[in-house]
């Protein structure tokens, strides 16, 4: 009986010579490998070099072009991209966008905090311990001669740390709103940091005993030296009033509310203006500042112009359970088509300036940045509550092309009209006309998952890099949309830090290009039916090809 049990538990051991001695050798070998790896990391210089960060903001530049001018990856060598190292993040659903310098990768590491990793090896230089979740791009800045890094925790606020050692310099919160949600990445200039403000109310409304809703989205400016507030601009100026009640009058309803700011602002250095988009209202009455693009003076926060694209759009998480006739769901409802993606200030090949806004309705709008008047609008998909255009687009101004990822994600219980057309679209920047479309077969026909391009994308040279919800990272040719390289992230990885690591959906801030590297987090499972994971993937292109 005992012999049978042993055989059953170790089928490979019987008669194949893979016995106790072999296992001992294996264990000792793995231990030595681990010690070797640790010894290698012990030699890591704790001080990162900050001479040349490969991005100055979420949009790589302040205009949010999402074009990386300092990448050596192009159509001729993209096929040689290989996995250089993988870092296992401390939690799934990574939402931090890495910053890369000549020798370091900075990234939010789940509940551990902000980590500085040696770009060549993935070894840790330092960690700034933070118990929340870093949920923005990591931004470089300077205070006098001191290099700093700025990032958001979604609920706890904005932080500035010393880039040399990760020591906290200041922590800023928005006190003008009771429940701010720091979802959008700030924009850092020489003297100020501009922080987009959304509101937790969009989720609190799911509680039927919550008196929805009283808060506004906004934009705040802070002194980069001290973290002190310079100004705050709510996107709804009017104070919310009681508009009704439910549950026998015990729970009051309020409005107007909402118009959250979800995306990073773009900056017009010539005019010293900020541009940003807003989301829908949470309740009625709706305002003329929801689903709109704002232009404001960076110095004062004074509104220059506001252009609303969708009127009368009121929606919260309460509407996600509309079958229950949720009392906090605005009536009439939706369609929930915010400007979640960051605005882009671009220049056409004829020299014309355009401000671009991508909407969850799948509409892309080009505006005159001076006035906000519409130059062209192109619709690319069906749209829906997860986009349409969701996180962000990219541009190649020298080719005169705007690249638009369309999610059109199927959300159970939310049948949107029309046929979903997820994919990557290239538009003529001058006219908004479609130049090419790229999509591919979804694996979701055979597996339980969803497809779509929800993640922000990035461009460089003559390539565009995009990641899909169903776990493929793709490089396509910028001029034709031809697929050049692809990586399937639905797998387990061996991470340099020894953490069990799994890939999953590509979503949120998307891929980063820097020098010869392609860096991306995988496993964004925040939204329904997306495969979670915890991988930071660093790909490198071969030299001389």
């Amino acid at each position, binding site marked *: 009986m005992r012999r049978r049990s042993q055989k059953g538990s170790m089928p490979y051991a019987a008669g194949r010579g893979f016995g106790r001695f072999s296992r001992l050798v294996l264990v000792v070998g793995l231990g030595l490998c681990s010690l070797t790896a640790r010894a290698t990391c012990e030699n890591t210089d704790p001080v990162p070099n900050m001479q040349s960060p490969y991005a100055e903001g979420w949009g790589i530049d302040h205009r949010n072009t999402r074009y990386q001018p300092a990448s050596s990856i192009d159509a001729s060598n993209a096929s040689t991209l290989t996995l250089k190292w993988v870092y296992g993040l401390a939690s799934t659903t990574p939402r931090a966008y890495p910053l890369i310098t000549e020798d370091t990768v900075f990234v939010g590491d789940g509940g551990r905090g902000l980590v500085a990793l040696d770009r060549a090896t993935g070894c840790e230089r330092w960690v700034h311990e933070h118990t929340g979740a870093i949920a923005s791009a990591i931004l470089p800045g300077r205070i006098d001669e001191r290099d700093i890094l700025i990032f958001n925790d979604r609920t706890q606020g904005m932080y500035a740390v010393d880039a040399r050692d990760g020591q906290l310099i200041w922590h800023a919160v928005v006190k003008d709103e*009771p429940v701010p949600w720091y979802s959008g990445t700030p924009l850092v200039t020489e003297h100020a940091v501009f922080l987009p403000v959304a509101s937790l109310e969009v989720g609190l409304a799911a509680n039927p*005993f919550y*008196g929805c809703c009283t808060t506004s989205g906004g934009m705040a400016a802070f002194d980069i030296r001290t973290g002190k507030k310079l100004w705050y601009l709510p996107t709804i100026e009017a104070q919310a009033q009681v508009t009704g009640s439910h549950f026998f009058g015990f729970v009051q309803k309020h409005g107007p509310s909402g118009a959250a700011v979800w995306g990073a602002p773009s900056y017009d250095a010539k005019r010293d203006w900020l541009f940003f988009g807003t989301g829908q209202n949470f309740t009625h009455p709706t305002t003329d500042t929801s689903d709109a693009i704002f232009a404001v003076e960076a110095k004062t926060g004074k509104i220059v112009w506001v252009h609303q694209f969708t009127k009368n759009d009121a929606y919260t998480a309460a509407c996600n359970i509309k079958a229950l006739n949720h009392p906090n769901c605005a009536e009439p409802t939706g369609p929930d088509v915010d400007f979640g993606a960051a605005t882009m200030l671009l220049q056409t090949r004829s020299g014309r300036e355009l401000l671009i806004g991508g909407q969850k309705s799948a509409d892309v709008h080009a505006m005159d940045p001076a006035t906000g008047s519409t130059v062209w609008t192109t619709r690319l998909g069906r749209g829906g509550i997860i986009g349409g255009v969701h996180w962000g687009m990219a541009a190649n101004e020298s080719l005169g092309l705007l690249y638009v990822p369309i999610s059109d994600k199927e959300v159970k219980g939310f049948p949107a009209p029309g046929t979903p057309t997820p994919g990557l679209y290239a538009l003529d920047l001058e006219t908004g006309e479609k130049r090419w479309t790229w999509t591919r077969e979804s694996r979701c026909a055979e597996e339980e998952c969803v497809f779509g391009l929800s993640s922000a994308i990035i461009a460089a040279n003559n390539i565009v890099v995009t990641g899909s919800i169903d776990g493929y990272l793709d490089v396509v040719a910028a001029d034709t949309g031809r697929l050049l390289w692809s990586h399937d992230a639905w797998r387990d990885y061996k991470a340099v830090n020894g953490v069990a690591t799994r890939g999953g959906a590509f979503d949120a801030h998307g891929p980063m290009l820097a020098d010869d590297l392609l860096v991306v987090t995988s496993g964004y499972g925040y939204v329904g039916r997306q495969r979670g994971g915890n991988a930071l993937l660093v790909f490198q292109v071969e030299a001389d090809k």
Partner: protein
Amino acid sequence: MSDGLFLAGRFRRLVATVIDAILVPTLTVVLVMIAGVVEHAEDYTDNWWMLWVFLLAIASYLLLNGYGLWRHGQTVGKQVMGVAIVPASSGGDGQYGREPAPLWKLICVRALFFPLLFVSVVPWIALLPLVDQLLIFMKSRRCLHDLVSGTVVVRLRPQ
């Protein structure tokens, strides 16, 4: 001991628990709504609202069950199902007396296990309510909360 009471059946106890598990949260929700402790955005600037909800849940439990436990050793669910909580020391040979267990034990020791039914999703204590409830399958039909508080649950009508 011929007039003694016998241990209550497991099914009766289960139904009694289900009734209490519906009534107490329902009253809590009503009190939360009346008090308005989760109604305003300002309530969520810190975590005090959680304490308020917890205190209102305790108030609901006492409002519904306080008198019954004091006088008869019964929650509403147990009254409906004809069972009561008595001291384990009140009997022998499988029969027990009718005198209710002391109120302080029922509130300060036994009732502490009640909220666990609703927090089993918290990972580090997820097993405790499971262990508590599974002990009902012992011969003595005493859950962990019975053992800790020195009580048994008996059927009031003779069998």
